[in-house]
């Protein structure tokens, strides 16, 4: 017989098979709606690619030595990946946690709270990879790949998806009302979309703008894609990948801990 007053629970109760089982639940649901889901969220970056790349691009000189559409395609690939992850871990995760009790049903089984949070992150990254890959296929049709390093784009997409799955989930697990989700978009996603070097290079802007941009995950995500797809610069790609990898590693335990505090107390 053990006593609750003496025993301490494990600080971090995590099992990879558990996270995988929760991941599988999400995959099974997604399989039913994948076409609808993909169309809605991946159409937007494709519209930007066509409108800005072909439309605006007609009036522009070459940017960083390439056609304008070639300049924005890698950035929009990063955006498309970011959208995929973010949608999954904001509205979708909130709905499952607060509205329909998917989280509570799962933690009544041998799954732990940490398993669910990790499964949610891995699913967010997976969904981001699906969206990113779909965009990549479209972008390829516009002939935007100019380097063999572009073959590494797929793992790069997965890394970018992982980072945005973690940051989005931290926000979702922090808020108390669904209305606050909109602020994640207006204060984090949209500013990055506009100012992280997707549509124009930051090199001619003041130093302080670039200093701020350095802290934006999308800035590094766009640089990573651009280095691989058009510029063929492995060193620059590695630097961006390292930034993203370190951020993912450092932040990974945060949502797990937050969800335990939120659901178990």
């Amino acid at each position, binding site marked *: 017989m053990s006593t609750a007053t003496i025993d301490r629970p494990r600080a971090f109760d995590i099992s990879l098979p558990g996270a995988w089982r929760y991941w599988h639940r999400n995959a099974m649901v997604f399989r039913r709606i994948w076409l609808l889901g993909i169309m809605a969220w991946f159409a937007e970056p494709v519209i930007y690619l066509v409108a800005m790349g072909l439309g605006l691009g007609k009036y522009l000189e070459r940017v960083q030595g390439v056609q304008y559409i070639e300049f924005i395609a890698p950035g929009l690939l990063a955006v498309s990946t970011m959208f995929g992850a973010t949608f999954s871990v904001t509205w979708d995760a909130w709905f499952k946690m607060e509205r329909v009790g998917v989280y509570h049903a799962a933690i*009544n089984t041998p799954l732990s709270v940490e398993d669910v949070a990790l499964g949610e992150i891995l699913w967010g990254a997976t969904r981001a990879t699906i969206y990113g890959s779909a965009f990549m296929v479209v972008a390829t049709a516009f002939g935007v790949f100019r380097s063999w390093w572009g073959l590494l784009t797929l793992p790069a997409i997965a890394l970018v998806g992982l980072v945005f799955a973690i940051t989005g989930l931290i926000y979702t697990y922090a808020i108390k009302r669904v209305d606050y989700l909109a602020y994640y978009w207006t204060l984090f996603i949209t500013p990055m979309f506009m100012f992280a070097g997707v549509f124009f290079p930051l090199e001619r802007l003041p130093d302080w703008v670039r200093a701020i941009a350095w802290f934006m995950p999308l800035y590094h995500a766009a640089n990573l894609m651009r280095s691989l797809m058009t510029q063929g610069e492995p060193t620059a790609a590695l630097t961006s990948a390292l930034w993203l990898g370190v951020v993912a590693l450092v932040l990974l335990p945060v949502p797990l801990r937050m969800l335990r505090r939120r659901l178990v107390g």
Partner: protein
Amino acid sequence: MRDDPIAVVARDLSKTYDRLEAVKSISFEVPTQTCFGFLGPNGAGKTTTMRMISCAMPPSAGELSVLGMSVVTEPRRIKSRMATVPQEDNLDEEITVLDNLLIHARYYGIKPRIARPKAVELLEFMELAEKRDQEIRELSGGMKRRLMIARGLLNTPELLVLDEPTTGLDPQARHLVWDRLRSLKRQGVTLLLTTHYMEEAAQLCDRLVIMHEGRVLVEGAPRDVVADHTTREVVEVLEPESDVQEQLEGLASVAQGVERLADRWLFYTDEGDLLLEKIRAIVPPGCVWLRGATLEDVFLSLTGRGLLD
């Protein structure tokens, strides 16, 4: 482990959260292969106790062991051998009835090859076989509840915890659920349920505790609890007019106790017929009747209020 005669042991179990002392040092033992009930009004601490037993909430103090293991250190092993049907349905509305069961089975690590026939069998057991491919939103409240119970049986639990299993159900649906729970008990499953329906407790429970404001007031078999804590019979008088109230008060000395509720008076007595005759002489016919004492009366006499308040 299956031979352990006690499924749940709580000693001086307490839970405080949001500065609220929801459970105040309660102790009880749930024998295996019985149906054990927690009765009490809303806010008595029943759900908090169920959540602690289900490893969903750590105790603040005291001991709590389920199937011989501590809820603090062994939540995964406990949860793999028990199941919880919470008060609110939390079915996955994005998928079908059958997929709900298959996904849940996967959470337990049950292989699809084994999960599918098991799920089909459970749908039949809960009379949901023809609903297997429907969406959750197409189900009635009673069907959802039955599906929740079916889902709770996927891992063939030794202990099934049900938090208010029939609240909000119509009488037919309630009787179907009761019938299935009795059948599970016969199969050797230990049942632990909360309810504020006296009839439910009397129908299903071998033993029960009555909780009030975080404490356990009494424990025992339903019949013994009634016998030990109240009189054999109760005479009820419906809304007595003010002019006869004085006469009725005069009869209080004949009864063992009188409880004045908003809409009726209750006279506790072991000699119902005698008292009934005396009261009939005072109030108009149809406003007074005699009945046997119930758990509701026990609760009323212990706390001065009804269970459904």
